[in-house]
């Protein structure tokens, strides 16, 4: 590839070679590493669904507004999910890690929306 920025590539190589240090081989017990990784992986994996359920009491405009505030969505996206709740009985709003899903359910319930989190199976 002919590039007028070829000099950048060369500088990049020189810089890279110049600063690269020798890396040591990790001396950590494989068993222990595996345990830590498993734990952090399960709590950080986006394996939880945040669901909003239909009810006959919350106003459609109110539900749209809450989705916009809690998730920072544009009105169009918030309305799409609100209509899904209204017409299909529920809408999966997002798929998140355990902690984030909990946070969103707390926020939605502060506005008295019927929202829960479920494990994605």
């Amino acid at each position, binding site marked *: 590839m002919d590039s007028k920025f070829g000099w950048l590539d060369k500088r990049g190589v020189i810089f890279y070679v110049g600063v690269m240090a020798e890396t040591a081989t990790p001396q950590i017990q494989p068993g222990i590493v595996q345990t830590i990784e498993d734990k952090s992986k399960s709590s950080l994996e986006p394996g*939880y669904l945040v669901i909003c359920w239909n*009810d*006959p*009491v*919350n*106003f459609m*405009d*109110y539900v749209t*507004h809450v989705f916009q*505030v809690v998730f920072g969505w544009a009105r169009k996206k918030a309305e799409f999910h609100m209509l899904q709740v209204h017409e299909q009985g529920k809408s999966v709003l997002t798929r998140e890690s*355990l902690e984030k899903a*909990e946070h969103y*359910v*707390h926020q939605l*319930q*502060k*506005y*008295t929306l019927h929202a*829960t*989190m*479920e*494990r994605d*199976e």
Partner: protein
Amino acid sequence: MKLVKATKTRLVFELGQREKRSLPQILKLYPCVPSAHHVLSKSGRLPDAEGNQQLLEEALAEQREENKQLVRALLADPKRFGHTDTGARLSLSPAEVEWLMQVLNDVRVGSWVILGSPDKKPAELNATTAPHFLAMEMAGYFQMQLLEALGRET
């Protein structure tokens, strides 16, 4: 309840005599939703489901206390809920509109729960159900005024 001034930092409403009387009455019903109404998960298949459910209840209880204090402060502050010849003037920041909507919706949903969570408007009202139905409708009315106003701020 009429929006008379809307800026990025302030929303000012004029309330008629009836609205001036009914808004404090509605707000004093808060909190109305029973804590058992809040469920974190339908399936309950979460790690430490009981502990996490308790966390939700604690967070909501904390928020209820905070909102109760804010309601009391709002109604007692003549700069924000001031009396006029025609009724009252209510001055709110956008953040206050947010929590006021939470409070009003709590009263609306809580009244609905007390009515037995009906799918439709009850065919007949009696001395027991009428006040809850009225509270539900009035809370909804004020809520809609606030929602409309948020859409109009400049």
